[in-house]
């Protein structure tokens, strides 16, 4: 009987060094943890621990600074891209990225987001799009799908009442100062690998001052969607992906 010993020479995957030992406050199965892990792995692998400043939003990932062990600035709701703008302008050799949800980035922070893209700031915006306000209890977000039930659209999002979901990735791709726009997910190992490759490219763009990189992660909010984590992934693939198709929207790097 062949047995694999649990020793370091056989180890092929472990918790990233820059993920802290704090237990994450996220709900079971939440995509945030997976994206955090990718970010932490890349900062370590790319040797950027001594060169990275991140900006956390208001929303579920407000406490991201508790989980990824680098310098963080915690932002007011929606203002992360303005903060990142100054950080990068004043420290041009650093990797500067924001980590924001759909309410933060696409509702209250629309102006800050759009204008950082307009200026082509050499930052990375990581945009977690789960089509809902998670932290406040599952209300409608700008990216909520038509017909989708949330706490503030209990009968489904009605376009006459609530307008239409809007696509930040497509808007970002229109901006001349934006170098790289991609839409990824983290629901399967292959997706995680692709998302990691995308964020790596975005980080390289920031370090190389090649313009703005916008990485949208289509994600789940199983508590907000009132589904199990596994069923949420299925629902996402079935309903979110047609509205927010995965892949590169722009790649000028």
């Amino acid at each position: 009987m062949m047995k694999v010993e649990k020793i370091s020479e056989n180890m092929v995957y472990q918790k990233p060094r820059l993920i802290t030992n704090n237990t994450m406050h996220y709900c079971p199965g939440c995509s945030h943890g997976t994206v955090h892990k990718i970010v932490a792995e890349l900062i370590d692998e790319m040797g950027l621990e001594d060169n990275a400043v991140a900006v956390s939003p208001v929303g579920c990932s407000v406490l991201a600074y508790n989980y990824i062990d680098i310098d963080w600035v915690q932002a007011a709701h929606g203002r992360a891209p303005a903060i990142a703008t100054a950080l990068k302008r004043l420290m041009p050799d650093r990797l500067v990225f924001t980590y924001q949800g759909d309410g933060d980035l696409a509702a209250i922070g629309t102006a800050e987001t759009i204008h950082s893209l307009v200026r082509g700031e050499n930052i990375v915006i990581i945009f977690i799009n789960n089509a809902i306000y998670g932290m406040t209890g599952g209300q409608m977000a700008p990216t909520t799908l038509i017909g989708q039930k949330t706490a503030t659209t209990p009968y489904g999002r009605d376009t006459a009442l609530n307008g239409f979901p809007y696509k930040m990735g497509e808007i970002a791709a229109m901006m001349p100062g934006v170098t790289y726009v991609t839409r990824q997910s983290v629901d399967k190992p292959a997706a995680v690998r692709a998302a990691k490759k995308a964020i790596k490219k975005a980080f390289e763009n920031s370090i190389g001052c090649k313009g703005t990189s916008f990485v949208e992660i289509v994600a789940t909010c199983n508590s907000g969607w009132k589904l199990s984590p596994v069923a949420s992934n299925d629902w996402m693939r079935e309903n979110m992906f047609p509205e927010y198709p995965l892949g590169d929207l722009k790649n000028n790097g």
Partner: protein
Amino acid sequence: MEDIKLLKGNEVLAIAAIRCGADGYFGYPITPQSEVMETLMDERPWLTTGMVVLQAESETSSINMIYGGAAAGKRVMTSSSSPGLSLMCEGLSYLAGAELPCLVVNVARGGPGLGSIQASQADYFQLVKGGGHGDYKLIVLAPNSVQEMNDFVGLGFDLAFKYRIPAVILTDGIIGQMMEKVTLSPERPRRTEEELAKECGDWATTGRKASRGKANLANSLFLDSVDLEQHNLHLQKKYREIEKNEVLCEQIQVEDAEYIMVAYGTSSRICMKVVEDMRKEGHKVGLIRPITLFPFPTEIIAKAAEHSKVILSVEMSAGQMVEDVRLAVGCACKCRVEHFGRFGGVVHSPAEVYEALKALM
């Protein structure tokens, strides 16, 4: 050799920022202070000192750029006028909560609402008492000349970093637009990365986590109420310390005065003329000019009230600072406290102040 120039108040804010080694300016145009950014863009300090100057898309964005720059330990500054400051109040609360040093200038105009573009002193409550949410204070400096506009840029930065607190220059459209002779501050270089690390290394988010051995965080979130109370107690302790150490106040013929005016900024210059006119007529009149509005010269006013019959707070507002003057004087004191001022952008004349004070004699 002294560097003497004839400059507008707004222009000198820009020149002083460059000369005192500011790292960045982020702003949004608004009358009557747009010359600050215009002068900076004309000077192009990024080619000389390396100072960053950026026009933001709003005051909300400018103050958050300040938050980002301040978090990194940089000497960053913004300027605006009253409606812009209203938008910045969110950011000021976060800056105060996260204990980040920066310099914010309000070249105030008449309000409320869109108000007017004429000079006003109606933003005293907004900046001295808060404006944003939560228990916080800002250091508030009130210049009354173009020279002080110059001097308070360096002073503001120094105080901001000494206490890790936002410092504000509260001035108005008159001083911003007025031209006077000014002796410029000696040039001091921007801090190097090493100097910054030495001064701000234990808190600034410079992205140098590995060399430092620990991550830094700029944050005003304390989910546990007891933690937040502790943080507030720490802030309050700092504010008491500032009150103890940093009061700046000019006193003109206060020693024997029976009638004292309290006025800051533009209003104080008008009152100086009133002191002169009344003294000529033999009235024992004096002027207390608070230079710091927070910390407020409470003790100086209280002491003056002991030998005074009337204290008149003269402000270009419906009466804001007068509340602090009343608190300083206290109910037990026999000295009467009154307010006089034109507002909405109207500036009182020395004759109007003279009449108002005369009526109280």
